[in-house]
Structures are given as C-alpha cells and as structure tokens.
C-alpha cells in the first residue's frame, strides 16, 4: 500500500510549491528575524537604510534593552497591557459567547436572525470596528452621553486617553512574580498527579516547583533589571479597546458553543431529567463538562489573536497613544517608522515566543492522536 507509485509522486509534486513557499515565508523568515534581532541593524540611523549597511552582531543586547533599558519603558508597559488585554478579552468573549449560546439554545423564535445579529461584527475588519468605536468613545462622545438619554449626567470617563491604572507592580518584581505563579501552578499539577497516582509526573512537577519557589525566595528579591523601581499596571485606556474587541469576537465563541450545545444528544438531557436533576444541576453536571474542550480551543484561538492584535489598537488609539499600545503595534512603528530593524525584529521574536507557548502544544496535541494511522 505504501509503494511509491507515480500517483503518490504526483501528490508530493503538487505539495512541493506550497512546502517551499511556507518553508521560505514562515520558517526561513522567522530565522532571519531572529538573526536580525541579534544584530544592531538600525540602531545607528545612518546605517538603517544604507545600501550596504554595516551590521554587527550584538547578541542579546536588544532584548536586554527591551526588558531593562532606560528608553524602552514603553515596551514593558505594552507587554503588561497585552497580558491584561488577553485576560479580560478572553473572559469577556467566553462569558458573552456562552451566555448568548445558552439563550439561543432555548430555541427562541427567529433564531437565525438573532444569530446573524450576534455574529455580524466578525465579518468586519478591525479597522472598521476601531473607527466606529473610536467615535463612540470620544471624551464627550456617544457612550459618555448615553446616560443623558435616560435623564442622567454624562459620564466623564476618558476611555482611550485615561492615564489611570490599577494593579500596579514594580517591573523589578517581575521575575519574582513569574517564578511564584509558575511554582504555584506546578504545585497544583503535582497534587493532581499524586491523586492520579502518576508518580513520575508528580516528582518532576514537585521538584521544578521546589526549585522555582526556592529561587523566588532566596535569589529572586535580589534580581534587579532596572536601577530604579518602574511601575506598570492595568491601564484604564485599554478598557474601551477590550470592549470593542469583545463586541467583534464574542459571536465567534457563541458559534463554537452553540455548535457544541447542538451536538449534545437530547437523550443525555432527558436522562439527567429522569435522574431528577433540575435545569441548573443538568447544566453543571452534564452540559458544562461536555463544553470544556470547546472552552479550551476558544481560549487558545482567542489568546493568540489577542497577543497579535494590532489593527484594532491602531485604529482606536492611534499609533502614538503610549498608554493604550501593544507590542505588535510597537514592532510596526519601531521597524517601519523609525527603521530600527534589529529592535523591531526582537519585539517580533518575543511575540512569536508568546504565541508559540499557546499554539505549539495545541497543534502537537491535535496531531499526536492521528500520526499512528497515517
């Protein structure tokens, strides 16, 4: 069956152009970006656009500049913005999407029409969405005027230009916070492995957790990335962007959940009813557990979208609104406005690493099961 027939060769021949293109445009270009990020290309403006620029190897200097350099505070705030953006965006989309799907699952009249209304923003570009919401979130604009329609006072919240923030922490504490969080997660993993009597996993997780927490307690407090404390936190200027993003993307989670709900056989619900469970018990013990794989997929897809998000921020906050910016936008500006290619490449590489953390396990998991009978 596996003989190398002429037809099978044709199949490979047909795939070859695509493989070559992906090889060049994805893998070679990623390699190039990483290489550029380790040079000083563009750090000297005179060399940036020179025909034969002098490019020197500088190792990880661009990265240490981004994480600990005096001039790159903007990037550090952007990383924190992305983190909070991702968190609230995913929570918002999952909440709104699940709610809509549950309501639609009750088979209201005109279900198709409701679904069309909830999903249409998905067909718009982030630039269109951003343009619309930017207008609505003007300081004295639509959303802030809304209370007056009901006879109230207009709100004065500075949606996109607010300088307030919450949950501030010192950037120097970041290694400490990261180590502690990962350590706690590993402890949870170890406890669960112990319960499932998976000794190997329990030991590995427990040892890693002990090492991390030990580091965090003994060495972590003495690590200083910056000479002076630098506070970063959840900037309120991104709240409006999160709302616009949820407006656009929650229809997607609704579609996922609705497909999942429709796939649950009616017999299961009936059986739960016969067993004497009421509606909320049925949802808690039967429906929601069946939906959890969908939640995981949705989190991964939304997570990688939110790490990459660029156009929405560009259209809503503009390129120079530092409080509301994200690394993806910074990369574009650094590379193509300031021509600091090496620094831009470093930001691009950091983004890639963040996305790879989310996507690689997902892809590996999707294909592990199938490789056996390929």
């Amino acid at each position: 069956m596996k003989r190398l027939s002429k037809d099978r060769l044709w199949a490979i021949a047909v795939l070859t152009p695509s493989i070559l293109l992906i090889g060049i445009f994805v893998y070679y270009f990623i390699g190039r970006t990483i290489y550029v990020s380790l040079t000083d290309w563009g750090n000297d403006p005179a060399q940036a656009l020179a025909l034969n620029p002098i490019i020197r190897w500088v190792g990880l200097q661009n990265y240490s500049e981004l994480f600990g350099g005096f001039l790159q505070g903007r990037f550090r705030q952007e990383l924190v913005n992305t983190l909070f953006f991702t968190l609230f965006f995913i929570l918002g989309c999952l909440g709104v999407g699940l709610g809509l799907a549950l309501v639609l699952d009750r088979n209201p009249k005109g279900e198709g029409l409701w679904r069309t209304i909830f999903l249409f923003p998905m067909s718009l570009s982030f630039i269109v969405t951003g343009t619309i919401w930017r207008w609505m979130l003007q300081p004295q604009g639509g959303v802030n005027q809304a209370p007056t329609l009901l006879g109230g006072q207009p709100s004065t919240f500075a949606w996109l230009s607010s300088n307030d923030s919450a949950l501030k922490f010192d950037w120097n504490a970041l290694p400490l916070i990261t180590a502690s969080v990962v350590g706690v997660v590993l402890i949870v993993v170890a406890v669960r492995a112990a319960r499932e009597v998976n000794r190997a996993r329990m030991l590995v997780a427990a040892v890693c957790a002990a090492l991390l927490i030990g580091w965090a307690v003994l060495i972590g407090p003495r690590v200083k990335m910056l000479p002076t404390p630098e506070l970063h936190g959840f900037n309120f200027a991104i709240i409006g962007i999160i709302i616009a993003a949820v407006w656009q993307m929650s229809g997607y989670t609704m579609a996922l959940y609705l497909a999942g709900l429709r796939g649950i056989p009616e017999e299961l619900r009936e059986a739960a009813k016969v067993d004497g469970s009421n509606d909320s018990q049925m949802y808690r013990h039967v429906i929601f557990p069946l939906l959890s794989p969908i939640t995981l997929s949705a989190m991964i897809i939304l997570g990688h979208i939110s790490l990459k998000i660029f156009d929405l921020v560009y259209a809503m906050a503009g390129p120079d609104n530092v409080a509301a910016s994200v690394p993806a936008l910074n990369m574009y500006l650094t590379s193509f406005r300031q021509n600091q290619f090496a620094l831009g490449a470093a930001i691009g590489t950091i983004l890639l690493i963040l996305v790879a953390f989310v996507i690689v396990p997902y892809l590996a998991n999707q294909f592990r099961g199938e490789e056996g009978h390929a």
Partner: protein
Amino acid sequence: MTAVPQPTVAAPPRRVGGAGRVLTYFLLIVAALFFLIPIYLVFATALKTPESIELATAWYWPAQLNWASFSEAWDKVGGNMLNSLFLAVVATLLSALLGSLNGYALSKWRFRGANTLFALMLFGMFIPYQAVLIPLFQFIKALGLYGSIWGLILAHVVYGIPITTLIFRNFYADVPDALVEAATIDGAGFWEIYARVIFPISIPGFVVVIIWQFTQVWNEFLFAATLTNTGSQPVTYALSQLAGGQAVSWNLPMAGAILAALPTLLVYIVLGRYFVRGLLAGSVKG
C-alpha cells in the same frame, strides 16, 4: 482532539415556557442592542452634515439626511476599494486552488510524515506576522514588487495556504476513500481522479474557502500598511488614514467605514452559513 459538530444539526423541538421565556427574549434584546447600537450611531453620524455633528447630539437621528457623505467618502477611498477588490479576488482564487490541490494530496494520497508536514504548515497560520515582517518586506522589495499590488497578493496567497489547505483537507476527509479506489481500479491516475471525482464535488468546499479568504484578505491591515504605497493601498489602510486625520469631520470616516464594511458584510448576510463553517474550521479539525 476537539471534535466540534457542525452547527447545521437541526435544533431539537424544545421550547421553554412562562417566565423563562420572557427572560430569554429580554436577554436577546439587550444583547442585540449591544451589537446594533454602534451601527445606529455610524449611520446617524454618516448621514449628518459636518456642521451638525456635535458630540452632545451624537445620539439624535439627523434632521436632514446628508447622503453626500458617501460620495465624498467614495472620492477618498473608492480607488482603494477597487484595489482591495482586485487584491481579494486574485489572492482568494489562487489560494483556494492551491488549497484544494494540497487538501486532495494530503487526504487521499497519504504518505509517511504527511501529518507532521501538515502540522508544520498549519503553524504558519498562527504566527504573529510581525515575526516575519522585516524579511518579508526585504524579499518583496528585492523582487521589485514593493508598492505593487502583486507583492501584497503574493503575501496573501502564501500565508493563506495553511487555512485553505486545512479546510479542503477536512472537506475531502469526508469523501469516501472507496470513490477514489474505484476510480483507481478503472485506471484513473492522480489528475484524472482530481478532475473527474474530486473537483466536481468540491463546490461547497470552494464556497467556504472563497468566502473565508475573501473576508480575511479584504479586512487585513498589517501587510497592507507595510507592502503598499499610495497607488496600491487597499481600503483598510485608506480608512485608517481617513479616520486618523484630525481635521476631517466624523461623517466622512463613518461613511468610509460603511463603504469598507459593505462587501464582506453582504457576503456574510447572504452566505452566512458558509461563513460560519469557515469560522469554525479555523479552530478545529473536522
């Protein structure tokens, strides 16, 4: 592996009565307001004259409809819309064709390592394009395609390969292998089977892929901002320029947003079922 069933499964006849019913419709209406109010505000603003746009009266429907906003906005972004149309049509057709052939080869002529290869291909769909942007820009420039619509088409075709291949591979996975085997016994080869057996039943697959790719390419911004210049900028870029300018009064960007949104919105409203299939295909394998 997450296997999300197709949403086309018919809804079971299960209706809730009484107070639950009132609550259901109440929630639906609140949600619909959340999704539709921005649209009301866009039209209300686009149809006002620049002089009558005041933030305090943003919510009021214009006393006099000013349709001229649309023709003015068209003057500013119309050429870019034509760029976008050409770009989206050519890029979509090319990547749909490539995807169909790839999907056929991957699902019907499986070979050792095909899945690993496919997974490596799919990774290209998830990467942040910022991680390839600088070499891509240099490459397009070296080819002499910088500022030409063809450079942008090349980028969209290549980065469209993973998703189009994915959708077609899953689509052909549902085609019984027996069909292919029967044709093989009749002496048909790789291309004959594609032309006589596979291609004729691929129409729904092509509809899903074409709708999805068209929407993606039309809406894309990062490549558009990086690889084009004044002559070849697509509409997303033109709209961002129109809205970003401080001097412009708001009726123009709103009318421009409506124009830029119209093609993909129409496709969605007319062919929503296929749109949703493409949407779900991006996250799960069938």
